[in-house]
């Protein structure tokens, strides 16, 4: 399908579609079950349409590159607080990640534990549903309970409910400075204990990760405040080992850099104290890191029976409560297994019914999230 550059063009393309469509933004996150169909390219729908720094809000067409939005915000010393991750390194994809793709996948990075997820910063959406109808929900103000919150429903729907055409977001001020406290040589269990203590303190930790055997705790804000809080945390965590103040690249955690060489990668959300158990249960040869204080496990492997490992991970997570997604994997595996965590019968039935109401013909990324 041609490069569409208007919302009406998208609506027309959906209305006139004779078969399944594959919604494509920047093409950076080829995740999920393999979907076949005509590509519907949204990346032509691009540009910031409104930015009010004093109101902490920005509105942009869904195909706008995240990099463009971040640059626009940086000029006013503001940022996307949920720290969207970039999968190009992990998946070996090229292209520019779009803001619509970020919201459609609820892509949130390390600051999610403190500031919230992409869905928490989404104020409004416009989208084209499966019938080719343009729908809007929410708006561009920070507090809005007018009617049902379909904005949240669209975030993380991976294009299966509608094609996002415009999004409005809450943004936050950038910070004057950041520092990371690093404790080297810590086990996963000890790491979660240390991170829980830090996150359960009043010192506003904005990143808590375990990477290559080290705990990273990020503090952000005004210089003097960071120095004060770093001192307090060093006292609180002294029993966990030597603590150094460092200037690390959090993109390593955000984008799961240690796993870039793996053939299969899972993103697993559990209660933080369950993180170490998930790691312990992985077969030998798997690599892993934890973000969100232990609540987000990135695990990867290059050998072994990937489908079997996948089944074991999802079965364990089903018991613990949470979800595991196969973010990267061989096509044959992704075609054969439930890439997204299978849902309880009640939730699955509601989700199925919602999909069939939003997309009655079943043409939008059909089967990407669930068969």
């Amino acid at each position, binding site marked *: 399908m041609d490069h569409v550059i208007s919302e009406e063009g998208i609506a027309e393309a959906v209305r006139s579609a004779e078969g399944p469509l594959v919604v494509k933004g920047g093409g950076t996150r080829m995740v999920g079950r393999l979907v076949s169909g005509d590509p519907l390219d949204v990346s032509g729908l691009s540009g910031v349409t409104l930015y*009010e*720094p*004093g*109101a902490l809000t920005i509105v942009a067409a869904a195909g706008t590159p995240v990099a463009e939005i971040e640059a626009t915000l940086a000029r*006013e010393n503001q940022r996307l607080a949920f720290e969207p991750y970039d999968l190009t390194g992990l998946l070996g994809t090229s292209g520019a990640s779009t803001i619509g793709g970020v919201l459609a996948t*609820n892509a*949130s990075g390390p600051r999610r*534990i403190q500031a*919230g*997820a992409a*869905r*928490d910063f989404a104020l409004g959406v416009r989208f084209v549903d499966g019938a080719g*109808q*343009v*729908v*809007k929900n929410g*708006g561009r*103000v*920070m*507090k*809005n*309970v*007018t*009617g*049902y*919150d*379909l904005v*949240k429903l669209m*975030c993380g729907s991976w294009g*299966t*409910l509608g094609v996002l055409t415009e999004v409005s977001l809450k943004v936050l*001020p950038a*910070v004057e400075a950041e520092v990371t406290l690093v404790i080297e040589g810590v086990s996963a269990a000890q790491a979660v204990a240390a991170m*829980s203590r830090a996150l*359960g303190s009043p010192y506003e930790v904005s990143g808590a990760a375990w990477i290559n055997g080290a705990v990273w705790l990020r503090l952000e804000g*005004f210089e*003097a405040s960071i120095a004060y809080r770093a001192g307090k945390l060093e006292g609180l965590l002294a029993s966990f080992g030597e603590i150094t103040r460092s200037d690390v690249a959090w993109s390593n955690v955000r984008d799961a850099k240690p796993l870039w060489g793996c053939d299969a990668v899972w993103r697993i*959300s*559990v*209660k*933080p*104290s*369950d993180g170490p158990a998930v790691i312990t249960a992985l077969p030998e040869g798997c690599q892993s890191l934890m973000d*969100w204080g232990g*609540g987000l496990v990135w695990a990867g492997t290059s050998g072994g029976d990937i489908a079997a490992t996948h089944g074991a991970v999802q079965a364990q997570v089903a018991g613990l*409560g*949470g*979800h*595991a997604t196969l973010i990267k994997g061989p096509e044959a595996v992704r075609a054969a297994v439930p890439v*997204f965590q299978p849902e*309880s019968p*009640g*939730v*699955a039935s*509601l*989700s199925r019914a919602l*999909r069939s*109401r*939003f997309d009655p013909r079943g043409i939008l990324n059909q089967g990407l*999230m669930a068969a």
Partner: protein
Amino acid sequence: MEMPLPDPEILARKARIVARLREVLPRDAVIDDPAETRAYECDALTAYRCPPMVAVLPATTTEVSDVLRICQEIGVPVVPRGSGTSLAGGALPTADCVILGVARMNAVLETDYDNRFVRVQTGRTNLSVTGAVESDGFFYAPDPSSQLACAIAGNIAMNSGGAHCLKYGVTTNNLMGVTMVQMDGTVVEIGGAHLDSGGLDLLGVICGSEGQLGVVTEATLRILHKPEGARPVLMGFDSAEIAGACVADIIKAGVLPVAIEFMDRMLIEVCEDFAKADYPMCEALLIVEVEGSDAEIDAQLALITDIAKRHNPVALRESAGADESARIWAGRKAAFSAIGRVSDYMCLDGTIPVSELPYVLRRIGEMSKQYGLAVGNVFHAGDGNMHPLICYDANKPGDLEICEEFGAEVLKLCVEVGGCLTGEHGVGIEKRDLMSHQYAPADLETQMAVKDVFDPAWLLNPAKVFPLAVSQPRRDAPMAAE
């Protein structure tokens, strides 16, 4: 405000309906004596009252499931009720409905400081969630003004906010999971102690659905460690325009206070009278609060007061201590009751882009003259969530109608400038018929399709949120009869 006429056929079956409910609930949990059902005739939107046919007070998720299953089987509408503090009429009954109150379900089920959550039954009040964890230094962040009385169930239904949501977000940002009973009695667990959904974000659409998708009986809530300290500063200005410019400058400077509250002269006077907080008398008062250690607070307030000084404040005073801070907030949080002592009032809740504040306040002032009704303004200035309080005389025939017309014009203005009808109170019955000003038919149709999925027979709180004429075909569709 029009409500659907009660179904005489349901009223005629009352005795049998009560008997069915008594099969699954203890005797004292089914209230059918008209002298007692009157206790449920309204919520905090007191201008509208209608006793329900029956009120039930289940004590467990199973009992809620039994009640809903029976009501679905026999085609009786159910109106869920938290503590009845809704300002939008969210819990207003109809004469043919069963009111389902969650007040008996108020236990704390699980407290987990390592993973920073509590799991509670939803009849528990907002403030008592914090009460259960504060001795260990933790708190639950959303703080609606009614937090002493309002239930978590209602907070979830309305996606309640509060004064401190500039930093901590509203209910939906602090809700991790729910146990919810659907109208057909099905119990679903959604979310939990982990973050975010692995599939569609059902939790996101349930929160704020005004009790129309299901009855939430248990909730997993994020808790945080309390900050080391907090201190408000009072800033008085000669006009709302100047106060608004000061707010924008504070936000642009990169400091994000936990709260920025605005009051105009009328509210300053009534709140001062009520709380004795020593508010400066001026046209526009800001309460700006920051958190942290003493030194961190000093540094942030130095920056903020520097900005304020550039806007020629007529008053600028930091709170001198915990006692004064408490009085400053007591005054603000009592704004509604304070004004209620001097007049009947209607509280609006529209949100606007903060850049439009001066224009909208000026227009409200003009309309106040036009309609001949006084207006006081108090609102969350950092996020543009306004609370104009329109005063009227309930004993004067026609005054309420004028007030409602005035209110509707203000809310339409909010939508016109890029805002919305309600920022944190919900649509209920109050803003129901204005929904078409904010949403096109396709927008409303899509929202109603969500209700079709969760409650196909449209029996849960059916006459709320959507304009009656718009929802009528769904509400009137033939249901599974007894």
